[in-house]
């Protein structure tokens, strides 16, 4: 620490500079940045893998890679994106940074466990990266038995252990959030005054602590079966591979809600701020997060409509899956109603919010096609499914993540980025995304199966469109990297509250001091007390 003459204000970024002060930090804001760097690296890796997949699919025959390599590419794309980018993305970065700030706390309840969660993530990521560079894995991200446990000749054990270990980082994050939200709220901040971002993270955390252990034990059993011959899923012994699918999807379907719920939380903040209105139907938006978390645990069987599950189970799972559409639609309608007659400002984060509403709606509605038994038999295992879940995970979850990153970037770094470039990138992403994945709905409906590197020539035109879209999408992700990094050095100082937003995190300087608030704030009103006639209420 230097003591130059005009002492600059001390905040969490400039209080210490050593590498040690970052690697041993227990400050939730610094840990959020550690996560931001890690998951960005994995996002880039997963993106490059996706690029290779799309490049191979430019032509009907095998040009770039053979079947074995292609299997590894899509497996590693899925594992990287799901376990090492999407699941930690909003909770571990934005949630870590914002949960304590939004509730007026100095830190999470367990700061050391928070740091531990990052190290656990890094260890699991290390295992997976080693597995990838020493030959890769080709089971698909779903690790279906008996292929994964008996027949695959790739690094299944190492990858499984990587996923197993990383699961614990997710559990620890969820645990920290649950306790923090229960016990650390500022005076006056009752449950129904909480920002909806907090409700969404509370719901997400419940899924993390209740779902993740189930996949942990399941993946561990696969590794034990492969390594030690403990054959629980082995059909030769009378074991049932479908049991694996049940256990796997018991977590992995709710895991989709781990990805989308935090994004919905971001959405509520963005829509209210840039419409300058209270959110429409606060209680319903909060309740719908909890409803999605609970219902999400009851629908896993819709992944097994064609895997020898009983017909009656199929019917029940189909009906339950329809139910999830209700709270999801409640959210979409309430955001739309909030925008209605609001004074909308088309800033970068709001463009992402618009993108989210449209893309999530398409993703959600096509989900209903898949939840319908008869339609699912037709499109199961085709590109229709691929398009559907990319609309949810990329069109929904990542759009929300990008919107949130742009919204809170000035708070996190104290700098403003170029809003013009931000809007350009948001539009490019929207166009590129739709061009990539809309053709895949058609391809899937026409019968093109997923996970093949070759396809009949009549599908080429749609595949070329999709690959072209992926190129635009890639560009759309590259531009924000450039202007966000640029803003770190040349950006204008952001000020405490550049958007005129409500919420405790905007009442403290940007970047915030190490303990967030100089004195514990006291909350006296409901969330989103926007006054549509002015440039914002300053609490």
């Amino acid at each position, binding site marked *: 620490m230097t003591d130059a003459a005009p002492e600059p204000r001390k905040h969490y970024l400039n209080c210490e500079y050593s590498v040690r002060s970052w690697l041993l930090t227990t400050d939730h804001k610094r840990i959020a940045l550690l996560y931001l760097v890690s998951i960005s690296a994995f996002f880039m890796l997963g993106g490059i893998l996706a690029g290779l997949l799309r490049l191979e699919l430019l032509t009907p025959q095998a040009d770039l890679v053979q079947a074995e390599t292609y299997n590894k590419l899509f497996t590693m794309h899925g594992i990287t994106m799901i376990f090492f980018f999407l699941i930690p993305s909003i909770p571990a970065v934005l949630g870590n940074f914002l949960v304590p700030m939004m509730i007026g706390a100095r830190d999470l309840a367990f700061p050391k466990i928070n740091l531990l969660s990052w190290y656990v993530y890094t260890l699991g990521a290390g295992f997976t990266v080693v597995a990838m560079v020493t030959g890769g894995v080709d089971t698909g991200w779903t690790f279906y038995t008996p292929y994964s446990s008996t027949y695959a000749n790739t690094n299944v054990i190492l990858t499984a252990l990587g996923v197993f270990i990383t699961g614990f980082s997710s559990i620890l994050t969820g645990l920290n959030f649950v306790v923090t939200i229960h016990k*650390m709220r500022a005076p006056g901040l009752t449950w129904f005054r909480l920002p909806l971002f907090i409700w969404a993270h509370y719901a997400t955390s419940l899924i993390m602590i209740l779902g993740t252990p189930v996949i942990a034990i399941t993946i561990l059993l696969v590794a034990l079966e492969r390594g030690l011959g403990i054959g629980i899923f082995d059909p030769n012994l009378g074991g049932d591979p479908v049991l694996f699918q049940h*256990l796997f999807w018991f977590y992995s379907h709710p895991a989709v809600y781990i990805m989308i719920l935090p994004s919905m939380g971001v959405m509520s903040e963005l829509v209210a701020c840039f419409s300058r209105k209270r959110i429409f139907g606060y209680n319903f938006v909060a309740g719908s997060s909890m409803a999605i978390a609970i219902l999400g645990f009851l629908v896993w069987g819709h992944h097994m409509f064609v895997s020898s599950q009983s017909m009656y189970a199929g019917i029940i799972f189909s009906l339950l899956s329809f139910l999830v559409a209700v709270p999801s639609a409640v959210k979409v309608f309430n955001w739309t109603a909030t925008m209605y007659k609001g004074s909308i400002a088309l800033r970068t984060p709001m463009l992402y919010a618009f993108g989210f509403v449209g893309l999530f709606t398409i993703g959600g509605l096509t989900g209903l096609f898949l939840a319908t038994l008869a339609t699912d038999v037709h499109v199961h295992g085709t590109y229709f499914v691929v398009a559907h879940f990319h609309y949810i995970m990329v069109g929904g979850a990542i759009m929300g993540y990008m919107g949130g990153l742009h919204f809170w970037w000035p708070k996190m770094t104290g700098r403003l980025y170029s809003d013009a470039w931000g809007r350009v990138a948001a539009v490019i992403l929207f166009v590129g995304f739709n061009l990539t994945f809309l053709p895949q709905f058609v391809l899937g409906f026409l019968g093109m199966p997923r996970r093949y590197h070759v396809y009949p020539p009549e599908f080429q035109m749609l595949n070329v469109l999709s690959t072209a879209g992926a190129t635009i999408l890639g560009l759309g992700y590259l531009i924000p990297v450039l202007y966000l990094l640029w803003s770190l050095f040349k950006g204008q100082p952001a000020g405490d509250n550049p958007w005129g937003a409500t919420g405790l995190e905007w009442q403290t300087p940007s970047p915030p001091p190490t303990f967030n608030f100089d004195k514990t704030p006291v909350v006296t009103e409901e969330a989103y007390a926007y006054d549509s006639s002015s440039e914002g209420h300053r609490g």
Partner: protein
Amino acid sequence: MAEHSSHVAHQFDDSTQQYEASTLGMWAFLLTEIMFFGGLFAGFFVYILGHAQAFAEGSRHLDIALGTVNTVVLLGSSLTMALAVRSAQQGHRNGQLLFLGLTVILGSVFLGIKGLEYAHKFAQHLVPGPGFRMEGPHAQSAQLFFSFYFAMTGVHALHMVVGIGLLAWLFVNAWRGKYTEAYFTPVEVSGLYWHFVDVVWIFLFPTLYLVARHG
């Protein structure tokens, strides 16, 4: 923050908040653990429907005497753990050392007996895998039973090892006189964990050892 004392971490306002947060954190963690073991139990109960006789046959190969002794040992360790928590709440250093020490010993005895059972199973070729040998019509599916037996008791034993590590750490801190009427949270929270691991065994014992002992 006027009443900030040395054992209240910076993020908490007072020791009550810290105590409540730690306790809630452990309960939430135990929920996670229930789901973790729940996956195994769910699998076991699904399979026993389809392989009732094989599972009964496998169960009859377990050593019920050692299993019963272990159940008693573990229940005893829960008693000593509860007494250790009480000593911590009352700030009795000697009581803490005595009861934490006894709990560690009982936990270790449990693991020792478990190891003995594992050794017997190994000698009898009842470990799943290429070396598995068993007489009778259900030999093949009985391997499934032993897969569950080793997975479930193995994961449980791992939790015991972690628990003993925790208790050893508490013992060192108790030796230094760290736990008083004003600050006993770590002992209480570790106690919750220890009791949970015992409760898991209370479910494992009938599930694995007693499942075929009717009539």
